[in-house]
Structure formats: structure tokens, C-alpha cells
């Protein structure tokens, strides 16, 4: 057990202090970090350059400076990112990759306040036709060229292929971890689960994979104990700040699976095989289903949530609704009745990265826990 706790504590430290993780990477390799702004970016290209791709997902912050630049109805995560931009939190980065799959991100990409150069790229949204992959591969090619110039290094196809393998190994490890964690909620509570997953945004991926694989093998040595609490699936953009997950944990819930953009949507699919590394990365986007930011008129998210709840024997689904995120808000009226029809109980909580108190969330989660106990 002590090794389990060691690994968890190591990953928790990384997840809670990205700045320190970046500094130690710099010290170790002599190379810096490149920000991958929420939500999906071709991290492998950065990794292939030998730089550390770092996920930028905001922080639990009071919004003050951002108010001068961003209207109040922009989503909570972008308010938080803007605040961090204004504070200079991203100024140690060599560059920032900026994707624009929603209207707020399009605008945010045009008002960057940090010092690091921004490389914007667009995901195609008519995703299921081959031409979409050609378009995205061209966008990634531009990203590569711009990165090469900024980082003053050559990023070869071979290096990207190698990085794709490193990333696919990590994706597999993460899927295994989520499955194993579901068997051991008494050890991997919602907060720990989140930290293990979040740490992958701030570590060189093969190192993260090695630690996670070791954690999995240690967990598998532990007996599977009956879980007396309730099991839930989380869906949404992210389940932060920490206080929000504490509420879920303190009400006796185990997170047995998730459909969060910050978590499983990142790794539920591998980068598929293909004719060139950039085309392969493009195809990953084509195959990403059930995300509110990836257009799909067949709206598969409801059925995917039903399948997840069935597979992991979940008692219910908690919708973590990012404040002012219209893509997520548009999905809800479609999947909510589907969950209802399938008899899957669910509740919605608001994700506000500025939140300091969580009484409202607690009331909802407490009520949900009582409902599930009936």
C-alpha cells in the first residue's frame, strides 16, 4: 500500500503545482514547455520537438483583471484563463497552441494577453468526410512549421510517429487506470482519480505512463472490496475546482467512469493508423464521438452515457455543467430525456471555476445521494 500512496502523492504534487513540474522538466532537459490551451491540441507535435506540452485549463481564481477584457457571459473556464493570461501565469511558456471549436474560443484566440506567441488552428466540424482530415492535416502542418520556427528545431515525421506511440501508450494506461480505479474506490476516491488523470497534462507522457502502470499493478494486488457508497459517471467539460470533487467524495460517491473533456475524452480513443503522422492526428479528431465541441448530427452522447452507466454498473450520472458553455448546454436537452427513458438517474451541478463555497453543489449532491438510496 505504501507504494500506492507514494505514487498518488507524487502525481498529486504534479497536478497541484504545474509551475514546479515545468521547472523540473526544464532543469532536466534544458528545454521548456508549450501550452496546449483547452480543449484538444496535437500535443504529439510538441512532444516530438522535445518540449513539454502543458494543458491549460484555468484555475480556481477570483476574476478581477479579466473583467476588463471579457464580457461576463463568456464561460467560466475562459474567464479563468483570461485572468491567468493577465497575471502573466503563462509567460514562461515558449508558445501556446490555441484551438477554436466554439465561438468563445474563436474570440479568445484573438485577444491573447500573455507574452508567449500563440499558434491558432481550427478543427474541421464536418468531421466524418475524408476532406476534413486533409484540412486538419494542413492545419497541423502549419502548427508544426510555426513551432519549428519558434522553438528553432526540426520536427520530423519520424519523431511525431514515435510521440504518437508514446501518447497511445499513455492513453491505454489511462483507460486501464480508470477501469482499475473503478474497482478500488476505497483507495482511488474522486479527488485522487482526478489528480492522477490531471497530472498527465504536466508530465512527459512516458514518465506519467510508467507511474500510472505501476499504480495499476499495485492496485491489482489489492483485494476488491464491496463498495457501500454509490457509483456515478461524470459528464461535462471538467469537474473542478477541488471543492466540487470534495463534495462528491464526502457524499460517499465513487466516480466509476467519466465523460469529461479534461479526462476520458482525451484518451478514450487512440490515434489511429494512417498514411502520415499529421493525418493520423487529424483522424483522432474524426473519431472523437460524444463531445459537445465535435459536431455530430447523430448526437451519440446520450447512448454513450447509457452504455457507460451500464458497463460500470453506475447508480447515476452527474452532469458537471460548465457555466456559460453553450455547446454543453445544447447537448443537455437531447441526452437528458434519453437518460430518463433508460431509467438512469442524474443530476446537474454548475461548474464555476471562480467558486469558493460549494453549499449549493452540496445540497444538490446530498439530495441526489438520498434519491439514489431510495
Amino acid at each position: 500500500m505504501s507504494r500506492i500512496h507514494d505514487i498518488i502523492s507524487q502525481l498529486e504534487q504534479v497536478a497541484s503545482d504545474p509551475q514546479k513540474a515545468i521547472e523540473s522538466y526544464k532543469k532536466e532537459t534544458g528545454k521548456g514547455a508549450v501550452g496546449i490551451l483547452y480543449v484538444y491540441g496535437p500535443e504529439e507535435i510538441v512532444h516530438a520537438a522535445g518540449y513539454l506540452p502543458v494543458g491549460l485549463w484555468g484555475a480556481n481564481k477570483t476574476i478581477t483583471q479579466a473583467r476588463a477584457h471579457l464580457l461576463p457571459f463568456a464561460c467560466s473556464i475562459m474567464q479563468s484563463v483570461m485572468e491567468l493570461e493577465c497575471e502573466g501565469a503563462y509567460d514562461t511558456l515558449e508558445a501556446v497552441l490555441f484551438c477554436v471549436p466554439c465561438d468563445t474560443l474563436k474570440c479568445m484566440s484573438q485577444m491573447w494577453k500573455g507574452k508567449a506567441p500563440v499558434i491558432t488552428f481550427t478543427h474541421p466540424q464536418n468531421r466524418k468526410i475524408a476532406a476534413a482530415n486533409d484540412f486538419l492535416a494542413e492545419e497541423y502542418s502549419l502548427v508544426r512549421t510555426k513551432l519549428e520556427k519558434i522553438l528553432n528545431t526540426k520536427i520530423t515525421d519520424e519523431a511525431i510517429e514515435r510521440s504518437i506511440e508514446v501518447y497511445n501508450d499513455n492513453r491505454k494506461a489511462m483507460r486501464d487506470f480508470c477501469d482499475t480505479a473503478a474497482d478500488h474506490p476505497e483507495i482511488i476516491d474522486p479527488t485522487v482519480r482526478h489528480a492522477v488523470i490531471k497530472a498527465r497534462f504536466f508530465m512527459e507522457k512516458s514518465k506519467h505512463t510508467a507511474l500510472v502502470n505501476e499504480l495499476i499493478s499495485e492496485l491489482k494486488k489489492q483485494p476488491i472490496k464491496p463498495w457501500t457508497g454509490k457509483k456515478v459517471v461524470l459528464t461535462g467539460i471538467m469537474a473542478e475546482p477541488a471543492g466540487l470533487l470534495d463534495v462528491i467524495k464526502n457524499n460517499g460517491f465513487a466516480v466509476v467512469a467519466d465523460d469529461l473533456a479534461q479526462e476520458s475524452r482525451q484518451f478514450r480513443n487512440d490515434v489511429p493508423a494512417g498514411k502520415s503522422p499529421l493525418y493520423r492526428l487529424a483522424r483522432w479528431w474524426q473519431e472523437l464521438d460524444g463531445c459537445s465541441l465535435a459536431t455530430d448530427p447523430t448526437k451519440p452522447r446520450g447512448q454513450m452515457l447509457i452504455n457507460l452507466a451500464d458497463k460500470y454498473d453506475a447508480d447515476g450520472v452527474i452532469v458537471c455543467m460548465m457555466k456559460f458553455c453553450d455547446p454543453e448546454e445544447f447537448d443537455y436537452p437531447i441526452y437528458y430525456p434519453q437518460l430518463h427513458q433508460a431509467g438512469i438517474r442524474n443530476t446537474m451541478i454548475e461548474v464555476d471555476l471562480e467558486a469558493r463555497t460549494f453549499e449549493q453543489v452540496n445540497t444538490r449532491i446530498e439530495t441526489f445521494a438520498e434519491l439514489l438510496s431510495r
Partner: protein
Amino acid sequence: MNIEQASAKELLAHYQAKLDEEAREAKKNGKLVCWSASVAPPEMCVTMDIAMVYPETHAAGIGARKGATDMLEVAASKGYSIDNCSYARVNLGYMELLKQYAKTGVKPELLAKSPAADVPLPDLVITCNNICNTLLKWYENLAAELNIPCIVIDVPFNHDMPIPDYSKRYIVKQFEHAISQLEGITGKRFDYDKFLEVQKQTQRSVAQWKRIASFLQNEPSPLNGFDFFNYMALIVCARSRDYAEITFKKFADELEEKLQKGIYAFGDNEKSRVTWEGIAVWPYLGHTFKTLKNAGALMTGSAYPGMWNLEYTPGDLMSMAEAYTRIYINTCLENRGKELAAVAEQGKCDGLLLHNNRSCKLMSLLNFQTAELVSKKLQIPYAAFDGDQTDPSNFAPAQYDTRVQSLCEMMKK
């Protein structure tokens, strides 16, 4: 109606009603009806003789006739957040009522008493994200709720200008894909000769549309920009038909005549000229106009109607792709600033009035940044107000009046 003798205003009302009637007739006769995003290319569907209905225009009409609140409530009851676009919510509420009507045969009370124009449910939808990605989410939901095909024309955000060929090629492939989808849906071969004629018609409509806009250059101006907003219904709903061309030509001819006779929009009370940035506040169109009018501030610039300046070379799909993707809000800030400055310059504007529209993030979140660029370039002031295109609860007349007043004071200096 005698088309030759009718006024532009009469033609506008006539053709709007006729388009709705055609859609209802199509439905009755088993022909296809398509609901379309306002700047999605209609050329393919029109070639296929599909009747078109435009939910944004329809929702704006409901808003202007003070009927939005009921539809917004229906959408809320279906789980739509008040943060979502009010055009989408009004339309999804309306769709829900039509669905209930089709299912039960009993007209829901809210539908019966709604001032909404009577339009039929669609058999397919077509969307395009050149004016927002919200249109992707909204149309996904329409297609899912009604279990009908959805044609998507994705025009990627142009983070750098000029627009690269690979982006245009991707859009052309989607036109081709849409054509094959339509052939599958209709069971008919696509008529490329007719397609060319439809493209030519679209260009004739756009040319007359631009001709109307050109009157805004005159000082004083015979054209009030708010009237221009009213005519938008036809550039949206009928640009690939001659209805738009006929009406716009008549309107431009009338403006020409007014100009020659010295008849101006504000008579001799044109004290200043403003650019209106953003969509109109349809439920308060009268109020927003009158406040400006009382201050002698004439709206002679708006980039909004210019989104339909869809000029391209008929027969050249790359050129058509470029026309549909270069919409200013689908481009980088620098280009947005350039386009808005050109509008303000053309309208000889003394200031900018920015609509921070709760329903439209893409047209609002960069308002200040764009205005700063324009203000710096043209040395003109700007002011902003909070509003919404169709949700009346998000607009406060008093705040609007104060902001207009302060803009007018700044313009005087």
C-alpha cells in the same frame, strides 16, 4: 399584386408571405421543406426545388411581434438554458409546438395564439457555421429531435488571412458532399445547368443588395440603416430567387429618386451618423431606432447586412467557397477591424454603437477589441449597451438610452 407598380415595402411583405406560403404548399403536396441557417448556401437546395425556411428570420419576426417569450418558455421546459442563443431557443420552442401539433392533431394553445408566421416542419436541415458554431449545435438538435438529415457546410474559422486554398478545397468538397446527400434525399439527379443559373441569380440579388448599401455614403442619407435591417429578410430567405433581386432593385430605385429629390431619412435633422455593430434588438426595434432618431443620430453603417455580400463567380466553386467563408466574424481580429472600419468609413460615421448581445458570443466578445481598432484608425468614439436579439428580458431601455446619450455627447466633441 402588380409587381411593376408595387412599392419596395409592398414587395417585401408580398414576397415574405409568398415564401411562407410556398413552404406550406410544398409540405401539403409532399414536396421537401428545408430549414436553413441564414448564411448557409441555399444554391444547392434551390436547384433541387426544395422549399426553404429560415429559422433565424422566423425567430426575429416572432421577437419583433412580441411573441418570443412564449417560445422561450417552451424551450426552457425542454431543458434549454437561458444562456443559449435566443434565436435558437425561440425556434426550438416553435419546433416543439409544431411537433406536438403534428403528433396530436391538436394545435397547442401557445402556437394558436403566437404571432409567428405559419411555417411547416422541415424534412431536412442545412447549416453553416460562418456566423457562429451555435448554428452547428442548434441544427444538430433539430435533426436529432425530428430524425431528419442534416447537411453541414463547415467553414473553418480563418485565424489568418488570406484564406488558404486548402480551406476552400475542404469547403468545395462539402458542397459536393451536400449535392450527393441531396441526390440521395430527393432521389433526383442534380442539375448542374440549373445550379449555374441559381448561382447567377444569387449574384444579381447580391448586386442589388450592395446597391442599397451604397446609399449610406450620401450625406445626408436617404437611407435609414434600420430600414436596411427590415429588408434583410429577403437577402436571407430569397437571395437565390428573383424575389430578392426585384425587391432590392425597387428599393434602390426609390432611394435613387429620394436622393435626386433631396428627401433624406431624417429630413434636415441628421446631426450625426453611427455604425451599429451587431444584430438588431428585434423586440425593441422601435425603441432602439427612436432613441437614436430623437438624438438626430442616423445609422448609416452596420457590418451585419454586409454579411450577405456573397459575391463570387458563378460556376467557380472555389470562389463560392471563399464568399461563404470570408464573413468578417469568421476571420481574425485584424480583418474584423479592417472590415468594420470600412463600413464606418463608407457610412461617414461619427461613432460606433456596440450591441453586447447576450445571445451572440461571436458577435459580442470581440466588440471592444474591434472597436478599439476602428476608433484608433478613424478617430471616432464608441459606446456599448447590453442587449439580446430576441430575448426581451436581456435588454434595458434605460441603459440603452444612457449609452446612446453618452455616445452622442462624445460625437459632438
